[in-house]
């Protein structure tokens, strides 16, 4: 699981049987207490931040989830009770349990002066996600650490601020090695972007007995994150990125190239991709759809485009030929 905090927005991506939405009441309470941010719409008795997205692929084991997370409808009811003006979508075929779910609120209206300022490029935003199942066993073996966890708890104490013995931490050390070995630190061609090396930071962890999570920060501002569950029978890997590939690579790379690199690491039997952007004019809309029609390895099973007010969404599901 991962969380990304910017001054004005946050992303929380959680695996397993986490109870993601249950943090909302306390989160908004704390933001009011600590920062003085009050998003309550008194008229409706709900909260109204600028924009909210909540999404997930259909679970493999929904009955093992906790409380509202067992059922998409219950999650949406919870979100609708909390936020103003939400809309929910089931994207893809509902009957084969391979669909994807999305909840999104209407963008909170800004006054005209503010809206004019927001026409700046800094507001541009895109998200690319690849959700893969049926991973090649040869590929998943790279994410099995075989390391032992400590039987005895370490001495109790507060988690430490930056220390000099970080390199002795086996989970992080093995995560680093997995990243290097699989080439997942080379998904983006940042080094050739502008005759300078974009700043790049990396944090990865190899779980025991298996599994892998990593966060990569590009140019101090963008991230991509990977989570891998390698177990045979329910293997799964996800890639999510808000890196504007054209901009960061100076137009030398597009998301099809990113997609190919990621697929090559996992060689999944099936995958779906979602791409959000502010404008359908974003070049990646076309290139990803061209990939769908030209791929020699994968066959497109579904393609759906949604016009979500101020965002455009592309969803495509593939199966290996």
């Amino acid at each position, binding site marked *: *699981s991962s*969380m*990304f*905090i*910017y*001054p*004005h*927005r*946050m992303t*929380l*991506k*959680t*695996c*397993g*049987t*986490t109870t*993601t*939405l249950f943090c909302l009441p306390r*989160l908004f309470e*704390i*933001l009011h207490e*600590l*920062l*003085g*941010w009050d998003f309550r719409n008194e008229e409706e008795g709900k909260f109204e*931040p600028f*924009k*909210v*997205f*909540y999404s*997930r692929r259909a679970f493999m084991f929904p009955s093992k989830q906790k409380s509202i*997370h067992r059922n998409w409808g219950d999650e949406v009811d919870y979100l609708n009770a909390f936020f103003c003006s939400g809309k929910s979508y089931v994207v893809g075929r509902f009957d084969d349990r391979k669909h994807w779910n999305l909840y999104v609120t209407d963008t909170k209206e800004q006054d005209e002066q503010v809206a004019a300022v*927001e026409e700046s490029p800094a507001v541009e935003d895109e998200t690319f*996600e690849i959700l893969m199942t049926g991973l090649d066993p040869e590929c998943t073996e790279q994410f099995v650490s075989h390391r032992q*966890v*400590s039987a005895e708890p*370490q*001495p109790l104490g507060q*988690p*430490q601020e930056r220390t000099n013995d*970080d390199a002795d*931490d086996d*989970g*992080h050390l093995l995560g*680093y090695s997995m990243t*290097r070995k699989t080439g997942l630190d080379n998904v983006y061609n940042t080094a050739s972007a502008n005759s300078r090396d974009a700043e790049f*930071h990396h*944090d990865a*962890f190899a*779980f*025991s*007995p*298996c599994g892998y*999570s990593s966060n990569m*920060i590009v140019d*101090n*501002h963008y991230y991509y994150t990977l*989570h891998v*569950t390698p177990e045979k029978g329910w293997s*799964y890997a996800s890639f999510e990125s808000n890196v504007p590939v054209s901009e960061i690579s100076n137009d030398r790379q597009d998301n099809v190239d990113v997609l190919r690199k990621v697929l090559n690491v996992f060689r999944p039997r099936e995958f779906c991709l979602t791409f959000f952007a502010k404008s359908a004019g974003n070049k990646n809309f076309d290139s990803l759809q061209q990939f769908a029609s030209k791929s020699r390895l994968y066959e497109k099973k579904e393609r759906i485009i949604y016009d979500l007010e101020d965002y455009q969404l592309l969803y495509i599901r593939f199966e290996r030929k």
Partner: protein
Amino acid sequence: TISITELTNHSYIDHQLSATLDSTEAFEGPEKLLEIWFFPHVGKVPGEGKTLRDVPVETWVSILQLVKCEVLSIKSTPEMDAFLLSE
């Protein structure tokens, strides 16, 4: 490409959790993805300049307890904080 220095430049790391975490029961792959934009951009953050990044780590830890997640480590840049979490 990453270098080995990435193992020593965390802004926060929980070695105790790193050493003892067992993911045997983490059977479910698909993740839940929640993204909240409180304001359209950083220039719209009101008040005395305090932002989400001023929320202390221990407060995030307490919020994440409600999610059933723990903080393994954090990397920070001048513009963002990236948390690596358990589960």
